[in-house]
């Protein structure tokens, strides 16, 4: 058993979270969230990996060739789409925050304003 992929997951998750906590710019913070979410792709694909197996596509390999789990791959695809949607929406919020409060530093956005 190799734990290396799961160490990579922990590392990506860790640096992303650290970036979110210490970020001084909203766009940088959003990018850090993308990094955090990237760790879930590695986790999903790592969990479904089968040693020595092919990708779950049987266009040019015989049917029933040992393949990795297609379900986690489909979930990773969903993950990417959701990330794109969330990122776009968060970036529009960052634009709005800059226009409203004149700053994109999360430390200066301390109180809720109507």
């Amino acid at each position, binding site marked *: *058993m*190799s*734990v*290396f*992929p*799961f160490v990579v997951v*922990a590392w990506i998750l*860790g640096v992303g*979270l*650290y970036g979110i*906590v*210490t970020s001084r710019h909203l766009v940088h913070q959003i990018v850090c969230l993308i990094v955090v979410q990237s760790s879930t792709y590695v986790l999903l694909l*790592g*969990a*479904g*990996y*089968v*040693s020595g197996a092919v*990708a*779950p*596509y*049987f*266009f040019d390999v015989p*049917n*029933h060739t040992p*393949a*990795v*789990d*297609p*379900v*986690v*791959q*489909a979930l990773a*695809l*969903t993950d*990417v*789409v*959701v990330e*794109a*949607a*969330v990122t*776009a*929406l968060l*970036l*529009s*919020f960052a*634009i*709005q925050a*800059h*226009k*409203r409060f*004149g700053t994109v530093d999360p*430390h200066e956005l301390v109180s809720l304003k109507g």
Partner: protein
Amino acid sequence: MTPATRRWVFLVAGAGLAAFYLWGLTGLPGFGSYPGPYGPTILRLAVAQTHATGVVSAVNFEYRGFDTVGEEFILFAAAAGISVVLRHLRGERDRSAVDEAADRDVPATSGAVRMVALLLAGPVIVAGWWLASHAQANPSGGFQGGVVIATAFVLLYLAGEFLVFKRVSPVALVEVVEAVGAAGFVATGLTAVLLGMPYLKNFLPLGQYPGAVSSSGTIALISFFVGLEVAAAFILIVGELLEQTLLVRREDT
């Protein structure tokens, strides 16, 4: 909260997260020995059942088709949300920020960039179309193809002006395409219901042999609709965000 205390709170919470992660890790079967049973079952049945050689697409648009409806509408809602969030500000133009670097000399787009972007736009649309229409055969599908098609419009923006981008993707038309894509997916599922089958049941002929463009019935059809929806959604999102930069520049002059 000062940055230092913020960091300490994070370190404490991070230590807890790491402990739970390690605990969870010990329960995993280990890298490279996925035990199933869900994945292997689908691998055994998918090609014969759906005539799709792309099993990931079969999972997305057939076995987990209902989840993918939700996934598609997350993107739909995000595009609508961005329109709402950014449109709200347009009415408050007097309060919006001015360009901080108004005196910055913005260099004109070079001829090389314009040329390459123009040359790439056509092939990129073809590649995106190919991806969106081959979900049943290869590692592709509507989500990937749609994003690639939207990229072609960004290339047109790079090649010309924002006005060119707006002219080739009028918001009213793109919104209709997005609605058709989203509704097409749902309507495909409802058609199965009208035929007396469960929602999103594959009711179309599965085709002669697995992997052909005409194979896999509704999987190919749904992937095509998803491609339309995703391409339109991303063109709308990019357009809304680009319009914001235009807004700031217009105020300077």
